[in-house]
């Protein structure tokens, strides 16, 4: 799966897409592959303030709970309600319909500190090499 060129990516395998101060956040294709079939998603309420680097929810497979870390700071304006009944959307469309939250960014410039698609792809290649060394 391709990594959208206009998204930015965190080391914790979250993606963020921003238009001005309106951002959408999800987990990457690499993350959903590592996790396996998603069975449960816990997302914050509208109005919750996110702090960069802090956990704001979790995505669970049968086997594991994975915390999600805020790639940037801001305030939640909506959470993807579809994921309650169809958490598997995160597996089938992690960069699109599997989005987790929409947020009003506190500081859009924060995204400059994140990886672009090329850098992220290199990052996960190295991760894959480590795993099969």
């Amino acid at each position: 799966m391709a990594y959208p060129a206009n998204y930015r990516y965190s080391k914790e395998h979250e993606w963020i897409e921003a238009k001005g101060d309106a951002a959408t956040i999800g987990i990457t294709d690499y993350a959903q592959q590592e996790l396996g079939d998603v069975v449960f998603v816990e997302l914050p309420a509208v109005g919750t303030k996110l702090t960069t680097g802090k956990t704001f929810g979790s995505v669970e497979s049968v086997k594991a709970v994975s915390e999600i870390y805020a790639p940037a700071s801001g305030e939640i304006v909506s959470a993807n309600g579809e994921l309650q009944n169809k958490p598997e959307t995160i597996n089938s469309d992690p960069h699109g319909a599997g989005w987790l939250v929409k947020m009003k960014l506190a500081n859009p410039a924060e995204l400059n500190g994140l990886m672009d698609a090329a850098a992220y792809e290199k990052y996960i290649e190295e991760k894959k090499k480590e795993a099969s060394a």
Partner: protein
Amino acid sequence: MESVNSPANSTLRKTPLNALHRRLDAKMVNFGGWDMPVEYPSSGGLVAEHKAVRNNVGVFDVSHMGDIRIHGAKHPGGALQAVQHLTMNDASKLAFGQAQYSAMLYPQGTFVDDVIVHRLREDDYLLVINAGTREKDVQWVKNNTAKFNCVVDNLSDSYTQLAIQGPKAVEVLRKLTDADLDAVKNYWFTHGTVCGLKNTLIARTGYTGEDGFEIYIPSDIATSERVWDAVIEAGKEFGIVSCGLGARNTLRLESKMALYEHEISDTINVWEAGLERYCKMDKGDFVGRAALEKARADGLKRTLVGLEMVDRGIARDGYRCFDENGKALGVVTSGSPSPTLCKNIALAYVPPAFAEIGTPIYVEIRTQKCKAQVVPTPFYKRLRKATAK
């Protein structure tokens, strides 16, 4: 998001099939110090593997488990005496070719390990033990049988052990062996030629709650891979998939089978774990018997119950349990979504007063207390076909 897979060049122990699992691109994890497959993306992952075992057939590499043989030395009967002393079930009731679920206990009546005892022949027993407790168990057996006339062999590295499990398991194995599998009942075993390997132990045992077999073959890599591939090939027409420890765990949890360090441990006794059926207090003395007698008289302080989540949320190993007033009751020993039941289930220790079916129990999931209720166990029981024999 954290990555949980273990790298290949780690210092974890490996079964003979380790390279094969990695060639199959299995997701590998550390289980009790072993580098083991947790699931195979090529099988479709954990849920697909779980369903394959319930509906068709799956194959597991369980070579990490251990094997201890106790056999008579100069005077026959020494091995039986040793096994009777060491374990809580009554091994004297075993016929040749019969096995029983049992456990080795500490003097306090708590668990060293659970074990399947196989009676190979006159005064010759094979104990199959857990992976994480191999060395501890071997030492325990040697220390506690020194006074008996028997020989203890640690055969753990001699075998590759494959578990072929599911309603179609017998059909798969039938294609690979000359043994009469229909004559082998549940918890019995035989020896036969499997994939050309003579005198292979074939046991109708397993850890999934389905019909199935465990076969014990020579542990060299070439033989191990050859037999695994033959099982997969024979199983293709039945929809066989490779299965990892993730599915192994969800399958055994649904069937309420204990896992060491979870439902049983060195701080939990036989009555608390609900395993009295396998504990024959009248068979004679055994390690832990006196403490169990006393514990029985003192009464149960906690008991193992099955839980089903009512609120949204997944109860997992180690999560704490509370009553509706916030009083701490105990802890979840094992918890997971159940692929067969499509519910979130768990086993937990609670005081006996909270063990009645329907009792609300609140499980602390991260910062929230989520409602669950006590349900009957096992959560899943396979339909046994009436055999017209």
